């Protein structure tokens, strides 16, 4: 485990999360573009937790855990909100030019793999993301 941090699921936490994730990805050996992509993906995933998982009654936490080996960086983002219907989470067509709705697309583009996995007991949702270290 390289990093494990629990923060309030609030907009004000995102800057700290970006700094910590960037430092962890760099410490794991990611090149600079890989670090930026990882930061963006985790930031977007956290935004989804804040805006959609917790919604307007945002009063929970997010747990971010990062681990790596020589080959791959893995990130788990866990929240304690009600379980979401993951079948409804998909990127929108980019040809549809309108504000918003790009978060899932960015996660898919920036990370090599991502999927919702079984959350720990007592948690609501768990998003796992992985990136090959180059």
């Amino acid at each position, binding site marked *: 485990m390289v990093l494990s941090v629990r923060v309030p699921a609030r*907009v*004000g936490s*995102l*800057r700290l999360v*970006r700094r910590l994730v960037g430092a962890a990805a760099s410490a794991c050996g990611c090149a600079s*573009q890989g670090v*930026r992509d990882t*930061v*963006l993906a985790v*930031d*977007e995933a956290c*935004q989804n937790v*804040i805006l959609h998982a917790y919604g307007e009654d945002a009063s929970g936490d997010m747990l971010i855990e990062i681990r790596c080996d020589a080959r791959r960086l893995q990130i788990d983002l866990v929240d304690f909100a009600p379980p979401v219907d993951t079948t409804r989470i998909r990127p929108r067509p*980019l040809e549809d*030019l*309108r*504000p*918003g*709705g*790009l*978060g899932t*697309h*960015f996660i898919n*583009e*920036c990370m090599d793999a991502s999927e919702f996995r079984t959350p720990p007991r007592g948690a609501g949702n768990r998003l796992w993301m992985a990136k090959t270290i180059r």
Partner: protein
Amino acid sequence: MNCEIRNEGDAAVVVLSGDVDLESSPKVRNALLDCVSMKRTVVVDMKSVSYIDSSGVASLVEAFQAARKNNTRFVLAHVSEAAMRVLELARLDKVFRIVDEVADGLGHGD
């Protein structure tokens, strides 16, 4: 995040710096929409944008669409490498008018 507006006649230069994220993008959105509603040309100087996320991109898209309705010229200038990467991920690098320098956006080179 800093958002400064510089008036240049019937044009506005909106200088963004720092992180344009979920916390700061509402301020950017409001500034851009105000400028689009009042000016014939809006140039967004993005040289010092160190980070931009989907909410920041959404602000740019909304202003771009408002500019089209308003017949306002809307240009992104001197886009930082970090910001350009995100625009490319969103396939918006071919949608926005993007120039190298603010002066190009103002049409001074025309």
